[in-house]
C-alpha cells in the first residue's frame, strides 16, 4: 500500500501534484463500499423528465423560480411603501391641522364680510358642519 509520490515524512506529497492512486487500498475499499450499480439509464432519464414536467406545473416551482428576484423586489417595494407613507403622512397631517384652524372672523369683517356671515364661516370652520343654522339657537 504505497504511493509513488512520497513526502519525506512518509505520507503523500499533499502540496505537490496529483497523488498516485493507491490501487490496493482502493480495492479493499471497493470491497467494503461496493461499486456503483448499473442503473436503467433510459428509465431514469424518463423519470427525471416526467418529474420535471410535473414540477413545471406546480405553483411552488413557479414561486421558486422567482424567489431570488422576488424577495429583493418585495423588500424594496416594502421600503418604498413605508417611505411613501411616511413622506405623504407629514403634509397630510399638516393639511389636516390647517383645515381645522378656525378662520379669523374679525379679519373677515374688516374685509367687509357681514358679521353674520363671518360668524357662520367661523362656526363652520370649527364644527365642519354643513349647516351651522344651529348657531342661531344660542
Amino acid at each position, binding site marked *: 500500500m504505497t504511493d509513488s509520490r512520497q513526502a519525506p515524512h512518509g505520507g503523500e506529497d499533499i502540496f505537490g501534484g496529483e497523488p498516485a492512486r493507491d490501487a490496493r*487500498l482502493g480495492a479493499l475499499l471497493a470491497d467494503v463500499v461496493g461499486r456503483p450499480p448499473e442503473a436503467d439509464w433510459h428509465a*431514469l432519464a424518463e423519470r427525471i423528465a416526467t418529474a420535471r414536467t410535473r414540477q413545471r406545473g406546480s405553483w411552488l416551482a413557479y414561486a421558486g423560480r422567482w424567489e431570488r428576484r422576488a424577495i429583493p423586489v418585495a423588500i424594496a417595494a416594502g421600503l418604498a411603501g413605508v417611505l411613501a407613507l411616511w413622506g405623504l403622512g407629514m403634509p397630510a397631517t399638516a393639511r389636516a391641522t390647517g383645515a381645522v384652524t378656525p378662520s379669523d372672523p374679525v379679519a373677515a369683517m374688516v374685509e367687509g364680510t357681514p358679521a353674520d356671515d363671518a360668524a357662520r364661516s367661523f362656526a363652520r370652520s370649527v364644527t365642519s358642519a354643513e349647516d351651522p343654522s344651529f348657531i342661531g339657537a344660542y
Partner: protein
Amino acid sequence: MTPPAPPTAPPVDDRAATVARDAALVQRVRAGDDGAFDELVRLYMRQAFQVAFRVVGHREDAEDLLQEAFLAAHQYLDSFDASRPFGPWLMRIIANRGANLRRSRTRRQTEEEVDGVSTAPSALDESERAEMREILTRALATLPERQRLIVTLFDVDGMTSTEIGEMLELAPGTVRWHLHEARRALRAVLTRFVGDEE
C-alpha cells in the same frame, strides 16, 4: 487494478469545450428548450449517479437523490454561472442534498452492491476478509463525512483531486490533505492484514 474513470466525466483537456457545450445547452434551457435539459441529464446522469451512490450508499436513495438534484438544477438554472462547467455545479447540489438525505435515513442499511468478483487481496482467507471488511467499515464510519467521500471518490472511483474539489468547493490541495488524512487512518487499521509497507 486500475479504478475505472467516471463514465461520462469530461476529460480535463476538453474543459473549455465542455464549458462551451454546457453553456450552449443551459442557454437553450433558459430559452425554454426542454430537449436541451434532457441532453444535460443524459450527459451527466452516470457521473451524477455515481456520486449520489457514494454520498447516500444506497441505490434507491441514489436514484431519488439524482432526480431531486436534476430538478433543483432545472429550477435554479438562472443562478448557474455559465462560464463554468455544469458538472461540478450539479455534483455540489448532489453532495449538499445528499448529506441531508443521508442524515435523515441513517436507519436504512447500506446496500451491498459488490460487483460479483471480489477485488480484495486473494491471500486473505474468507474469515480474515470478513474481519478486515468489518474493521474497514468501522474505520470508514469514524472518518469525517468529507474524508470518507474523498477517499472513496479518489481511490475507488478514480476521480481527480481537482474534480472532487470542484464538487465539494475545496481547493485541490485541501482535497489532497483530506485524502492523506483518510488514507493514513485507514492504513493504520489495515496494517495487521496487509503489513505496514510505508
